[in-house]
């Protein structure tokens, strides 16, 4: 490296190096803090909006702009309740709520604090239930919308938070596949055990969905997630 001396200033002296690094660190720290503070509100809105959109996707409301999505969410979601595994309502939430069931994550879900979104689409009551599980490459989650009978699937959306998007990403992007869930039943005729699942060879077309071609392991993950997740809501789903 060519040693450049600027007007007699020795850029290699210890003192200079020290002062220089201090200045750089301070400048950079302030700059970043400023950018972070300035953009944080926007980011929070985005994170919330993303979740709202996923919920709307589960209700088959797709192709929607960001501005519309926020409004639509407010109109459609009557309450973001929190219930426990026995079906008791812990927190009633509120219309278009973003504070109760909306903020729950997979840890709350494991601990038995379950989110339940009560929605009204075209005058009919729908319930959205979030589920969490593991795909091949990383965590996956999904939202299952159910009709008022708490048995018929109204719509489904799956998301893949993983690190690499390979074939597993199909569960997120393949709308055609997600639409296969429409009209399926959670319970097989006359039973009280969750039967909604993803399989390679469909035996019972009323509860089973074809696996994504080439993504068998991720599909298995979705299947486990559905059975485990919906079982948590068993008391709620079977109560009339």
């Amino acid at each position, binding site marked *: 490296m060519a040693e450049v001396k600027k007007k007699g200033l020795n850029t290699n002296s210890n003192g200079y190096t020290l002062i220089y690094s201090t200045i750089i660190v301070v400048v*950079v*720290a302030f700059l*970043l*803090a400023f*950018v*972070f503070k300035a953009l944080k509100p926007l980011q929070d809105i985005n994170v919330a909006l993303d979740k709202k959109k996923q919920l709307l996707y589960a209700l088959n409301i797709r192709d929607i702009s960001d501005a519309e999505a926020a409004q639509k969410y407010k109109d459609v979601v009557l309450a973001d309740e929190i219930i426990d595994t026995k079906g008791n309502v812990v927190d009633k939430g509120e219309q278009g709520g973003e504070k109760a069931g909306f903020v729950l994550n*997979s*840890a709350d879900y*494991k601990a038995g604090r379950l989110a339940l979104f009560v929605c009204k689409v075209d005058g009919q009551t729908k319930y959205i239930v979030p589920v*969490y599980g*593991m795909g*091949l*490459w*990383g*965590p996956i989650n999904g939202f299952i919308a159910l009709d008022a009978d708490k048995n018929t699937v109204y719509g489904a959306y799956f998301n893949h938070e993983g*690190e*690499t998007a390979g074939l597993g990403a199909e569960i997120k992007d393949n709308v055609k596949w997600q639409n296969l869930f429409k009209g399926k039943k959670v319970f097989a005729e006359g039973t009280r055990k969750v039967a909604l699942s993803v399989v390679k060879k469909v035996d019972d077309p009323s509860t089973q969905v074809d696996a994504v071609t080439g993504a068998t*392991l991720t599909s298995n993950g979705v299947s486990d997630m559905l059975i485990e997740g919906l079982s948590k809501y068993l008391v709620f789903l079977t109560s009339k």
Partner: protein
Amino acid sequence: MEHLISLFFRSIFVDNMIFAFFLGMCSYLAVSKNVKTSLGLGLAVTFVLLVTVPIDYLLQTKVLGPDCLIEGVDLSYLSFILFIAVIAGIVQLVEMAVEKYSPSLYSALGIFLPLIAVNCAIMGASLFMQQRINMDPSSTQYIGSVLDSVAYATGSGIGWTLAIVSMGAIREKMQYSDVPKPLQGLGITFITVGLMAMAMMCFSGLNL
């Protein structure tokens, strides 16, 4: 314990730095010409990973995360800078140590020792670690303690070493093969890595 073991093996085979995430490709391609230097660089990377990932883990959980230092202050936007600073510092130390105790290795690794600082595998491991802290604790990829981060770092390092040493061996053999002229060197190396990555995918079904 079980979690540590599955995390360790998963990091070597399934979440392999090279074959699944393409991390650390620059030095991987440049140094993998023979087995001996490959092994040297692999060990250096493993060592640096082993030191930096736990440090970065502590930084992330004790200093940078939300509400860690001061209630209500989230410093996570400083994570990139702090992680890279830790890595650059550790690499500097390793470089000095290698230069002192093993001059032959030092001359063999040449420019690539300082380049470990900008080796994506190392920064990548820290960033993945940061992402995995927030994961579901029942997942095999979850990192929830310093021990987890050590297991993850060792596994990733060994996986990287495995990848670079096997590549070194293949390239040693390949010298005697008749590769089309324009494909020689970089081109064929890429295709080889691709094929190896495909072979490694058979581990992805491993239920750990």
